[in-house]
């Protein structure tokens, strides 16, 4: 049982980090970023190249993933989303753009890194063993790093100037603008930050599960699930959603091990029932 819970927490921390990026972009710009999973994959491949191929320290590789994705995110916001949001009659148009960007990133990833599953050498060796728990040290480290990043992100949003500006923006775009928040600038920073989070998790998980070009879509869907569970556009919701999905998956896979895909079927079905009772998730506001 302790094993299942530990796995759930470890998984949940990764998931929460993914969901945070998605929910941030949604809260700031009302954009459902279909390309989130692809950003994650790209981050994974960058860490794979820097750490696995070039032999740079893991933390440097992680940094490279984060920075690259941040820049890509900023460019995507500035060059694409901003224009489309301004010129489109219906705000749903951003979904088409996000889907097209997802395809685009998929294509780029496929061309640059091919379709093989890639892995990297273990970052630390050894396994933690106690009576109730067996956990490789690298998983512990990655889990701890993820928790650390979540904490850093929350502190940043709570206390830094950009963080406060973005929270104001998420709450009420017009009011924030009247208060002198530079909407364009912070939309870009927010998008960059969301993309960066996706890239960093991709980098983190490459050390455990490796990466391949096909997992972008499924990762996006999991991120959507977490955001729906917790409530779209709410930081606390994303974290809660991440840990809940991590835990359910961990429990589900150990209980329904023999049935494989049934676990996800059960999760999906349960989610639809849950959402019909609580349409805005655990903490979401009815603003979607």
């Amino acid at each position: 049982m302790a094993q299942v819970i530990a796995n759930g927490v470890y998984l949940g921390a990764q998931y929460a980090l993914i969901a945070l990026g998605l929910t941030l972009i949604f809260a700031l710009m009302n954009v459902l970023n279909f390309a989130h999973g692809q950003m994650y994959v790209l981050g994974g491949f960058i860490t794979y190249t820097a750490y696995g191929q070039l032999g740079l320290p893991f933390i440097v590789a992680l940094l490279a993933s984060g920075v690259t994705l941040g820049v890509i995110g900023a460019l995507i916001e500035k060059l694409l989303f901003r224009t489309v949001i301004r010129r489109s009659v219906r705000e749903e148009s951003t979904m088409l753009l996000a889907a097209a960007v997802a395809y685009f990133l998929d294509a780029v990833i496929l061309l640059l890194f091919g379709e093989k599953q890639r892995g990297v050498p273990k970052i630390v060796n050894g396994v933690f063993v106690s009576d109730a728990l067996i956990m490789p040290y690298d998983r512990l480290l990655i889990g701890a790093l993820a928790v650390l990043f979540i904490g850093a992100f929350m502190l940043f949003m709570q206390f830094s100037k950009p963080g406060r500006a973005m929270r104001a923006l998420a709450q009420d775009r017009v009011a924030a603008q009247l208060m002198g928040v530079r909407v364009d600038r912070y939309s870009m920073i927010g998008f960059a930050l969301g993309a960066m989070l996706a890239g960093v998790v991709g980098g983190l998980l490459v050390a455990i599960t490796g990466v391949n070009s096909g997992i972008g879509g499924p990762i996006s869907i999991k991120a959507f699930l977490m955001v729906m569970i917790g409530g779209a556009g709410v930081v606390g919701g994303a974290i809660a959603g991440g840990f809940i999905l991590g835990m359910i998956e961990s429990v589900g896979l150990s209980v329904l091990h023999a049935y494989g895909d049934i676990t996800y079927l059960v999760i999906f079905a349960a989610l639809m029932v849950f959402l019909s009772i609580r349409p805005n998730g655990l903490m979401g506001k009815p603003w979607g």
Partner: protein
Amino acid sequence: MSSTSKLFSALAFLLVTLVAVPWLITVTRRLDLYYTLTSVALLAIASGGVWLTFYIGRINIGQAAFALMGGYVSAILVVTYGVPFWLTLPLAGLFCAVASILIGLPILRLRGVYFAMVTLVLTEVARLLALALPVTNGAKGLVNIPLPGSTTLFGVTLIPDFATLANPRLTFYLISVVLMVICYAGLYRLVHSRVGRLCLSLQQNEELASSIGVNVAYLRVVIYAVSSLLGGLGGAMFVAISQSIYPSSFTITDSINFMLNCFLGGLGYVFGPILGTFLLYFGWDLLFQTGRLQLLIFSSVLIALMLILPNGLLSLRLFRRSKG
């Protein structure tokens, strides 16, 4: 447009698709184009359903679930129970409509991205169900489905037995186009009747609509059922042509593409999805020659189109009119 010019455009469309295109294909010997065009017609039917849910203000990324459901219902009826295909086609549509009512009652209360995400998940649920249920034969799918037989009405053969035809592809093409025309004529009438106005009132403000006595929940479910019916029809027809169906026959990619078709044509235009489907499917096919660059070019063009025409291709027409 006056009603005579409407009639004229409709006749011109039928003439081109039912006479000119087959003639061109025969002349150029590009028989493979029949399959492509048939696919466009059938996917356009499913996309039309997605467009209709957009029309009541819901972003539907779950149409592949109903296409898959329709396909399986038809295939199972044909293979396991020996029901004639032409009877399974309406049954598949109805099955999807009824299922969508049950699913829609709870989820249609969701709005905006929540509805979008739930329908996306629905697509995945459908795939997993198809894998898990005994009747669908799991990942192996249902294969070697017999071609549709003949159908007669009052002794007149409406559709001949496909197995005996020299050129079944042409017949499939003609039937699919006719089915598409019927579906879109229905959609056109819906949008231009008071029902369409009521849909528009939901799209623009559900609270206001309910304050003037519109039964919002009922209308939403009815429209979603029509939408899913179109998805089921498209899916069932598709299976009849490919003679096989797998859990992966319609996936999340298809759901997203149905949505893209609507966007690309323009959400404000009933016939937008036909144009969108045609361009997206043909564009993808044409780019096949570029090999590894196919997806890159395809997505770049999509992004460029979004930047230039964020309101869909048919908004060009609107632009011209407002200028002149």
